């Protein structure tokens, strides 16, 4: 028997008013898998990601993450979200707190750790992203790449079962992208299940288990990176891959 997928989304629809953004998306993600979601802007990939932890409320469909029915009104959504880390394009660090403060807030308020225990776990998480020496800096004193790594630390400190990355390097200067990808690669090596929406095709090629191509609210094609990038079967995939590889 195949093991239960960690993420199991079925027939997910999302309407924003008259706009039909997701038109019945199915996505399964297995444990320790890194799934890369690509597609033109407006294809619904970010919306899909945001539906997975219910930052966006799907209009219909079902989403089960780590055995928890995310759309069941009886589900304690705050409890469920602890197990789903999310990293945003614009970092969204809390500007009034230090790096350590950012990482420990949910540890204390949600996971119920004491301050000392939260600090210990928080420092360990910062260590993992290579920023142990920046624990007492505020976001304003950190570079974009460092801020994004703190944001990753903020999520992994809670020991999530799956991590969602929403264009994590799109807001970064090119020379800062590498440090963030490096952290993502080491996360992957530690066995983290990851769903990544990104345009970093090089990273997708050598780190992803599977690439999912979305267009117009639907998954058009998916498969191993080599297959999607070298021998796409769908015209739309071919056109998109051709466009991004010209740059």
């Amino acid at each position, binding site marked *: 028997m195949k093991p239960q997928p960690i993420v199991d989304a079925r027939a997910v629809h999302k309407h924003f008013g008259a706009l039909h953004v997701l038109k019945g998306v199915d996505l399964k993600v297995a444990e320790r898998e890194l799934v890369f979601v690509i597609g033109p802007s407006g294809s619904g990939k970010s919306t899909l990601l945001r539906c997975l*932890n219910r930052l966006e409320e799907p209009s219909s469909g079902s989403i089960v993450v780590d055995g928890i029915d995310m759309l069941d009104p009886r589900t304690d959504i705050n409890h469920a979200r602890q197990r789903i880390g999310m990293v945003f394009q614009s970092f969204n660090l809390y500007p009034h707190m230090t790096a350590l403060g950012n990482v420990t807030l949910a540890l204390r308020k*949600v996971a119920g750790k004491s301050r000392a225990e939260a600090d210990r776990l928080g420092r360990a998480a910062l260590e993992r992203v290579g920023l142990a020496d920046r624990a007492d800096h505020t976001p304003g004193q950190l570079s974009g790449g460092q801020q994004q790594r703190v944001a990753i630390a903020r999520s992994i400190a809670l020991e999530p079962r799956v991590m969602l990355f929403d264009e994590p390097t799109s807001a970064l200067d090119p020379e800062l992208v590498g440090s963030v990808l490096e952290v993502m690669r080491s996360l992957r090596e530690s066995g983290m299940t990851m769903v990544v929406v990104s345009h970093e095709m090089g990273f997708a090629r050598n780190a992803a288990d599977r690439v999912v191509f979305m267009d117009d609210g639907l998954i058009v094609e998916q498969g191993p990176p080599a297959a999607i990038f070298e021998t796409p079967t769908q015209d739309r995939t071919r056109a998109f891959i051709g466009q991004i590889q010209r740059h």
Partner: protein
Amino acid sequence: MTTWDRFVDTFFNGKVMLKYLPDILWGVVVTIELAVLIVLSGLAAGLALALLRSLAIRPLNWLIIFIVDLFRSLPPLVIIVLMYFGLPYAEVSPSGFVSTWLSLAFVLMAFSEEIFWAGITSVHKGQWEASRSTGLSFGQTLMNVVLPQALRLTIPPLTNRTIAITKGTALGTVVAVSEILGAASSAMSNSYNPSPLMMGAAAYLVLFLPVVILARRLERRFAWKK
């Protein structure tokens, strides 16, 4: 007598000043009491309304907006007079002190609610999302993430408004509260000499200058470190 001597005799008459000094000092005490009460209750109520408003319950928000707009449009003097002379017809007779306190507290509540609300809404949506995505509840996010940021933004407009409304304690004169201005003007009519008014002016300066300076330092302290 030179012109200067006559000026001093009129506006800074030592004998008159000495005689009415205790009255003015009492006025200072009353003004401080009023000011502290107005600031504490007005800001607390304003913040409470802004927090209620963030729950986004439609009918409740309409009510809040109506109350806030009402108290922002009415001149404070009108509210004080209505409360002092009008409420007795409803079998409630607040003293002049209570009327002044509550009226100005309502006005400060209304203005500060708008300022707090503007602060809350100006915090970027991504802050909510980041916090909620780590499992913090709506209330925890509001208190730990959004409000601390919102309050920093609100400090400059809030201090200005607070000082302006607190000076409105002088309106208490109309309903026989002997705060600084009240004490000074009755001393002035008793002594046929405006020296007490000068003492009152000095008292306002002594009271409010430190507040204004403190406000400026607060603003600097809470400016973003970029």
